[in-house]
């Protein structure tokens, strides 16, 4: 049995609401782009529904329904949203079509982020507060490689634009690459264009000891 996180584990943990916010952001963005994962995610949500049915009920207080009725008296039902024709809800950014969950976390256009350039690679941190994770956009120039590296912790990389490959496989828009501590790789952008990715890593300091590795923060394990 492999120690690496599997995609289904991430989908199930997201359905259960267990993922830390930065990891949930990557998974929700992946779901936005992948109909196959979306089907599997719905299945894991359905398991949550089935488990809720099986939960031992805890009786509500005696005046529970009375209080509920009072709340209903005070509230207006929400009207269904009006779709004015086929609205164009896809967030575009200079021709870049970003998943909506991600768009909500960007303070402005992608180009306005604080990019730092390291030769073939540029990266920009996203403003997420969770100190246990680093969340960033990475841009890899066409045909160029990230210096070969291993991981101290886990890294999730979602392709937003373009494509890249490494020893684990070939990743296109919407694909999620999962690398754990054991992976030694050198992602290379395909020759036909720059590759833009959303990546989240658990801060290395957290994972220096074996305890850190066992209590995998990605799944809040």
């Amino acid at each position, binding site marked *: 049995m492999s120690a690496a996180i599997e995609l289904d584990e991430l989908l199930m943990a997201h359905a259960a609401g267990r993922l830390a916010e930065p990891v949930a952001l990557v998974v929700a963005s992946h779901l936005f782009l992948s109909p196959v994962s979306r089907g599997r995610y719905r299945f894991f*949500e359905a398991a949550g529904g089935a488990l809720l049915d*099986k939960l031992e009920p805890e009786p*509500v207080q005696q005046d529970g329904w009375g*209080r509920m009725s009072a709340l209903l008296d005070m509230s207006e039902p*929400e009207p269904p949203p009006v779709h004015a024709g086929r609205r164009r809800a896809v967030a575009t950014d200079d021709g870049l079509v970003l998943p909506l*969950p991600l768009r909500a976390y960007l303070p402005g256009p992608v180009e306005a982020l604080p990019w730092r350039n390291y030769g073939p690679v540029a990266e920009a941190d996203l403003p997420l507060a969770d100190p246990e994770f680093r969340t960033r956009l990475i841009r890899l120039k066409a045909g160029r490689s990230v210096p070969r590296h291993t991981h101290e912790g886990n890294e999730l990389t979602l392709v937003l634009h373009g494509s890249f490959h490494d020893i684990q496989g070939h990743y296109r828009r919407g694909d999620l690459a999962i690398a754990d501590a054991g992976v030694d790789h050198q992602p290379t952008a395909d020759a036909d264009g720059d590759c833009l990715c959303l990546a989240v890593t658990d801060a290395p300091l957290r994972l220096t000891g074996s305890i850190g590795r066992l209590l995998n923060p990605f799944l809040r394990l």
Partner: protein
Amino acid sequence: MSMVDEHGRDDLAADMRAVARSQDREAFRRLFDYYAPRLKAYLRRAGAAGDAAEDLAQEVMLTVWRRAWQFDPAKASLSTWVFTIARNKRIDALRRERRPDMQLDDPSLQPEPPPRGDNVTELFRMSQLVMRAVEDLPEEQSRLLKIFYFEEKPHGAIAEELGLPLGTVKSRLRLAMARLRTVLAKAEGAKAEGSAVE
């Protein structure tokens, strides 16, 4: 044993439609009687202390009432829909985090293959399969799965509580997931077969 037989569940879905159609309070009361105690149990396990579990259960039910229009039996079973509302409430209120999420009915989503035949029937079949899979799990796996879905506890704390080695907790969880996946594979296989025939 399930708390509700299929007949009861059908009635709840009909009640939900009545709430969406005409804000039927009698129907909503039946939904409240069924779901509020389960939601309270869920939110208690998720860490809501004292009266907070009751208050949050009320808030979830209020959302069910106000967003009744959003319930679409072609997308999720009623219990699944209620579960997702409670889950989001829990993250929002108990963990004080945002939940990056997507609206599954958003027209900008990457398109899915066109549904074959009757979506509701297909979904009903899937939720039957999921329900049966959850019913059929060995007790120790179903117990762990509930902890995974309903509690904040890290695995280390679960292991301590159950007096099990951490490795056992993790492998049992994986076994439970593997069981669910077998069912999922069956459902996806049936779907693929169906489209091949058409």
